[in-house]
């Protein structure tokens, strides 16, 4: 086996995986904290990708800079969605399942809004540095992937710091560990949940822009992204941020390596099959869940 090729796929796998992780942490957070499986998570990311595309085409704005616009608006949108749609069902018995169906409805609505605004054509975010590479020894690094990787590192670190260091973040974790006791301590559960959901949706926006720099995207892309989300979150353990990061990298490495050695059309079979096997044998993730 060609060693350089293996390392090359390993590196690009890690870089792709970091973006999957960035897309997945918010998903993991809402699932773990609120027991809400937000199936429309990837669709919010897709909207950010399309907005970044338009801002780039019209104003020449760099995709990363476009996050300054999309992240706050997605945060607001996420808060609104939580307040009006998710909150009414959180008291129901089967929140997890009803939230899946409800957010599936949201995903359909968003997908068709994207279709109405942008049309069905696949898009590619081609910036000035898309095809630029730099080399370290025999290994090549593509700029967009490195950028995506850095974005993911910043994003995951930011969310981790938010949860561990800020008062609001601590409230989120408290509400997650002991919802009733935290309310007794004066934590407004509804408000905290809203902020968490908004943050999760905003992180999906960052992840979506990251994905857009790696792959071409179209209004239906979120379906495939969603499968990656489930993979990342289930491998990493639900609600476990660092687990999701590690899970994302692992998935990235596996797809990266299989891309090098497997015919293209079998890669998704492998991905889905892998998810099924993990679900059967390690449904609570490969790593110890950290609460």
């Amino acid at each position, binding site marked *: 086996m060609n060693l350089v090729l293996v390392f090359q796929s390993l590196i690009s796998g890690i870089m792709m995986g970091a973006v999957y992780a960035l897309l997945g942490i918010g998903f993991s957070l809402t*699932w773990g904290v609120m027991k809400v*499986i937000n199936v429309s998570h990837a669709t919010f990311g897709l909207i950010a990708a399309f907005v970044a595309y338009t801002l780039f085409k019209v104003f020449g704005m760099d995709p990363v800079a476009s996050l300054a616009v999309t992240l706050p608006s997605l945060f607001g949108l996420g808060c609104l969605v939580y307040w009006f*749609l998710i909150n*009414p*069902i959180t008291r*129901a018995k*089967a929140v*997890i*399942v*009803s939230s*899946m*169906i*409800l957010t*599936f*409805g*949201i*995903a*359909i*609505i968003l*997908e*068709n*809004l994207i*279709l*109405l605004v942008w049309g069905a054509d696949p898009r590619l975010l081609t910036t000035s540095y898309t095809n630029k590479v730099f080399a370290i020894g025999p290994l090549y690094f593509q700029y967009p992937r490195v950028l995506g990787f850095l974005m993911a590192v910043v994003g995951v670190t930011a969310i981790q710091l938010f949860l561990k260091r800020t008062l609001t973040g601590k409230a989120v974790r408290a509400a997650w560990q002991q919802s009733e006791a935290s309310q007794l301590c004066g934590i407004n559960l509804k408000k905290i949940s809203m902020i968490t959901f908004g943050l999760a949706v905003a992180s999906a926006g960052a992840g979506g822009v990251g994905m857009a720099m790696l792959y071409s995207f179209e209004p239906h892309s979120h*379906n495939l992204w969603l*499968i990656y989300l*489930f993979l990342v979150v*289930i491998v990493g353990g639900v609600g476990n941020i660092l687990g999701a990061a590690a899970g994302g990298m692992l998935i990235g490495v596996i797809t990266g390596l299989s891309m090098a050695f497997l015919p293209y*059309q*079998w890669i*998704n*079979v492998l991905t*889905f*099959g892998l*998810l*099924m096997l993990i*679900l*059967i044998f390690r*449904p609570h993730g490969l790593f110890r869940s950290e609460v």
Partner: protein
Amino acid sequence: MGQDSGWSKRTLLLVIVFISCVTIFPWLGPPVYFISFAFNVFIYITLATSWNIIGGYTGYLSFGHVAFFGIGAYAAAIFGMWFGLSPALNILASIPAGLVSMLLAILVGYPCLRLRGPYFAVITLCFAFVTELTIRNLDFLGGADGLWLKGLALPIEVSRSIFFELMLVLTLVTLFVANRIEKSKFGSGLRAIKEDEEVAQTMAINTPKLKITAFAISAFFPGVAGGLYACYLTYIHPDIVFDVNVSILIVLMALFGGGAFWFGPLVGATILTFVNEGLSTFVKAEYARIIYGCLFIIVIIFMPNGILEFAKTRMVKKPAKFEAAVK
């Protein structure tokens, strides 16, 4: 159905008259469009009702039920190809096709049914994706080109009417089985699983066996429906018979009607198929789907137990009449 305690004589008579009217409908010479549309309604009723046996009664939401439909369609097509069956015999091959689906459901269900809640939903969704992608990648199954079947050498009205009747029979059988299950001890066991699986186990209910039986039964009817559909269309393609949206639509239909009753999916599937057809005829596809998405949200927020339960609580003044309709 006659000896069922829930049916009053009048309801039974009404049902029989209604079924007879539906049976003679295609022979009165309506436009073919209506026959095909009714055929679609029957398919959705069959799918939603059989989904409900596992999803509604036990609360194990299978998001990949379309896989069994697709497998049935492919199995029927392959039986026809390998044994060189005539078109009429190929229709009969739908029943072994249903058995193939059932067998696969047992194989897949055995490991998957140990998972609960969202994990089960995700794994069944994955199962649907894996089957679709595998068939798409295998050349001897037609791959991405699809498979052709021989059609009946009859005028289109006649062949459509025949399929209409066959599908009607399948739908009635499915509804009957769902009804019987609901009234039986088996059905009570399934509902006990939905309420609390651990408690059910301590009450000496063999939950793994019940779940796998329910899963197998709920895979059989979609398989037969898939076989009939393949013969009806005379062409199958992974995109058509493995459409994941159909999978999720089935779930919505059953929940929309109300998963606790055998009657719920029938109501849900009928209403939603009509709404879908109406929307896609009169508005742009994107708007139609947006309205559809809103429907998901409305159902979950305002009628979490389905439209039947919703109507029941709103019609407390005349419960006797409504009870009769539900049971």
